[in-house]
Every structure is written in C-alpha cells, then in structure tokens.
C-alpha cells in the first residue's frame, strides 16, 4: 500500500472528480438526447448533402462521445496527479 492520504485531501480529490463526472454527463446528455429533440428543424440545414439532424445522429454525436471519453480520461488523470493519488 502507498502512504495514507489525509481525509481532507481525499475529500478535495473526490469533489473535483465529482465535478468532472457531472460535466461529462451533461455533455453526454446534450449529445445523446437534447440535440435530437430538434432533429426535425435541424434537418432543414443541409451540409454536403447531409441534413444536419440526420448527421448528428449518424456521426456528430458519435464523434462527440469518442472525443469526450479521451478528454475525460486525460482530465481525470490530471486531477489524480494534482492530489498525488495517481498510480506510480
């Protein structure tokens, strides 16, 4: 086991982790559901032949998901390092 981490430090680490969790889930919710509520109106905008509402469900949201996970992983890693609780 590594050296003990003080409860205050652990608490601070967890509150930052929790904030990151809520931010990530908010982005997840927006791109999973919220954008697609407006699909019928977004479809009026056409880019390279893709109606935008269709494009968001077929590619746009998926790209956001992939980028979001990598961003989250890097961000969480920084938090862990900041509080000295990352793995060696």
């Amino acid at each position, binding site marked *: 086991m590594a050296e003990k981490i003080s409860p205050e430090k652990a608490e601070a680490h967890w509150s930052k982790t929790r904030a990151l969790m809520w931010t990530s889930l908010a982005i997840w919710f927006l*791109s999973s559901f919220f954008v697609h509520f407006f699909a019928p109106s977004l*479809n009026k905008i056409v880019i*390279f032949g893709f109606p935008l509402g269709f494009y968001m469900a077929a590619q746009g949201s998926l790209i956001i998901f992939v980028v979001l996970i990598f961003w989250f992983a890097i961000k969480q890693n920084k938090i862990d390092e900041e509080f000295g609780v990352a793995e060696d």
Partner: protein
Amino acid sequence: MLKGDFISNLGKVYGIYTGGFIGFVIVLAILEQMGVPNQIIGYLFVFMTIGIYALIGVLSRTAQISEYYVAGRRVPAIYNGMATGSDWMSGASFVGMAGTLYLLGYDGLAFVLGWTGGYVLVAVLLAPYLRKFGAFTVPDFLAVRYGGNIARSVGIIVLISCSFTYVTAQIYATGIITSRFLGLSFEVAVFAGLLGILLCSMLGGMRAVTWTQVAQYIILIIAYLTPVVILSAQITGVPIPQLMYGGILEKISVLEGQMGIVKSHVQPFTTYDPLNYFALILCLMLGTASLPHILMRYFTTPSVREARISVGWSLLFIFLLYFTAPSYAAFAKYEVLTNVVGQPIASLPAWVKAWGDIGLVTIKDANLDGILQWAELNINTDVIVLATPEIAGLPYVVAGLVAAGGLAAALSTADGLLLAIANALSHDIYYKMVDPKADSKRRLIVARVLLVFVAVIAAWLASTKPSDILSMVAWAFSIAASGLFAPLVLGVWWKRATSAGAVCGMIAGFGVCMFYLVGTQYGGMQTWFGVRNISAGLFGIPAAFVVTWVVSLLTPAPSKDMQDFVDSIRLPRGGPIMQEN
C-alpha cells in the same frame, strides 16, 4: 512462445498477422480468377479464420487463475479497446445493423446512438472503479460492496438472464453464416460454430479470449469496410463512403419525391414516436454500461489509468463500424431506387434474383403491371451487408471476406458472453459459495467443465431456432440496465447505499422489467404509455433507483469499514483492493 516479451511485441505480432490476412485474401482472389469454385473459396475462408482463432486459443492456454479470469491484468489499453470492440459488435451489428437503417431510415439511428453513447457512462461512472476494486467478476463487486451472498446471487440471476439469450443469438448467427457459406445443415453448422467458440476460450479463459478477439476485430473491420469503400468509389468516385453518402442522401430524397414514397429516409420519427425513440436510446446506453461481458473487459488492464483510456479506444474502434453502417444503408437504398424499383420484374438485377431464390428478398406484383414498385419489394435486413459485394459487381472473394467478418463478429461476442456466464458459475457460485477451499487446479477444471456445459446448452437452444430470439437480444439490454445499473453506479457514487437497499433495488428493477417484457410479449398485457417492450428498461431502471434509495434510507447506514472501502476504490493509488491468486 507467448511468454514474457509477447506483450511488448504486440504491435509486430498483429502487424504481421494483418499483413498475412491481406495476403491470404489476395491469394484467394488469384485462385478464384484461376477458376477455383466459389464453394472451395468459402470453405477456405471459414476454416482458415476459425483455425487461426483456435491456434491463438491453444497458444494462450494457461494454468494460472488470474490469467484465466482477467488475462493477468496485463492487456494494454489499445489492445483491450480492440478486444472490447469485437466483444461488443455481434453478428447482428455486423450483418443486421445496416439493413435496419435501410428499413427505418433516421429512426434506426437510435441503435447507432444507443450502442455507442453508453461507453461514456462506462468510462465516467464504472470502469476505473471496478478496475481499482480488482474483482474477477461483476457479482464479486456486488458481493463485497453489499456484504454477502444475497447480493451476489441476485446479481448472478440478472447476469445469466441477460447474457444467456444473447449468447444463444450469437451461436444462432454463427450457424446461419456457416450454413449459408458451407452448405452444411443448420444444426451441424451450429455445432461446428460451437466447436470454434470452445477452442478459442476453453483452454485459456480470458487470456485466450482477449488475444483472439483482437485478431477477430482486425478481420471484421477489414471485411466491413472493403465492399462499401469500393462501392463508394464506383458510385461517387471517392472511396470514403462515410463522407460521400451525403450526396447520395440528397439523391434519395429526390427519388423518393418522384416515386411518391411517403416515408422519407432522413425524416425523424416515422416508425418510432419520439418517446419510443429516446426510450430505446436510454435503455441501450444504460444496458451497455451494465452488461457484464463488457465491464469485465476493463478488469484486464494494467492500471486504473489505462482502464479509462481503454474505454476511449474501445469506442473509437466501435465507431469505425457504426459510422459506416448508415452509408451502407444509403448506398443500398440508392441502388434499389435507381436500378431495381421501376424496372420490369422480368429483368431485375442478378443479386435480387439470387437472394430472392433463398427467400430473403420477396417481390409481390400487387397491381400486376409487371413493373416493380417500392411497396412491392421486401428485403430482409440481413441482406444489405451480405449483398453489397454483388451489388457492386465484385468477385466472390469479397463476399467470402464479408462472411468471414460476420463470423468473426458472432464468434467474438459469443466467446465473451460465454466466459461471463461460465465465470459467474465457477467463480461466484462454485468457489465463493460452494467450496471456498478448492485449490486452483480444481477451480480451473470446474471453470472449463461449466464453460462447455453452458455452451452446449446454448447451442442446443440455438439449434431449435427459437422464433423471437432476435428481439430477445434487444431485451438483454433492458434486463441488464434494470437489474445492474443502479446497484453498480450507486455502489461507487453513493456511500449511503445499503445492502438491503441494493438487493431490493435489483429485485425491483429486474422484476418490473421482466413483468413488462413477459406481460406485453406473451400475456397480452397493454403497453404502458405506448412504450414498446424493447424499451422495458424505461420502467425497470427508475424502479431500481427509487427502491434502492428509499430502502437504503430506511435501513442503518453502512459500517465505517464499508465506507472506507468505498473511499479506497475512489482513489486510483494503491493497487487492487481485492487480491486473489
């Protein structure tokens, strides 16, 4: 041979393997040009690829418990991502997804969204914490967090309910593909597929399954991309179908207008109303984050940090297939609207006739004018991907490649599911509940015997061709989400969740979901608010959360020890909590 420096040589090993596979396809293409019959080419594809998987399985055999259950926790993030990709993408995603999109247009995208977005939840809410905990199985976590074998047992029941129907469907898919390409009878093909699955997983457990799944991913992605890239180059002049089908969508809309087709390809909510569309997305996403065969893949990474990154790689590899599927659908629809519909029925393209002969394309000349109308043509969803090589006029070798890809997708998912079920039986029931003193040799024997046992039952069930097996696959997501999502997430994120709360929550979620599924499917029950039963989780998931919350608050808070335990899984440092050997 696979010791020590195997991990550090992974890039080289799989690079050579990929090159070898491409070489193999080229050789077969040359053989075909020299006049070797199609059936021989088909046999070579199936036997060579299954042979390779079996070889990897045999080379990865192991006598160590931690190698068997979690591949020694040495799988680098990117390879675990590839393995998860093929673990995830089933025969149905490979063969059926594009066809569903062809049929439903925009509304089919609920599957594309639902089967990708769940990984965000896996990365943020669960994978790193389960990895830190260091369990061998998902019920292991439930048992430790919720103090005991009641939580473990309920978890096992949910796990088996959701995984077993799923694995049966995979073996069924293997049987279909093998029988179509080898001309074996369906029952023989099912057991041939089963043999392939067992050879991959039995000797080496998770370790063998991991390295086989990486190999299977490479084959399935090459097989999926090749035909549609060529088709895109033929139709649009640019071999990037994912970008070029925008123009095709425009042409489809124009053609739909000319032909008076009411249901537009890009128009939202023509099949599902918005409630069902979003309910389905929600159930598929939460189900993704609860399916044990996916979660256990993240037990195999070397660290918590790599577990997180690995989820990103997984989704990237899955994304490659899922963002291609809509382009398959668009190109196929364009082809049908330009070269099939509106033609005299006597002179339809050859591929329509070929698939019509085996009953997967049906034509009914309703108005007897001898010309095919849109409404008179019915295409089975499996045909779109399988027929694309013929639509593009490609040689048979490409069709064989697609079949090998579909087989890889079905086999890899079956492997993962089978292992999840067998591990729950051998580790959670036998070792943890029946005989905790068993030595490692005995445990591995039991694990292998149970694996074969479960596989044979699933194969037997598949060989009886149960009628609504494919809808049962969609149910698996709702069942997993209803029974497991709340206890797993609250177990990490809410210290106040108690054993009684979690057990009641699991039973409530699972119970509500099953009640709705069975009631509406078989009992003639009315749907609630018009929600279709593939989204039964819409009721099960909140039931699980509410019951867990209420019962937890009514029972005394978890002990100090348990709260410390939750704290310790929240911090990456310090190695796995649960050390087993």
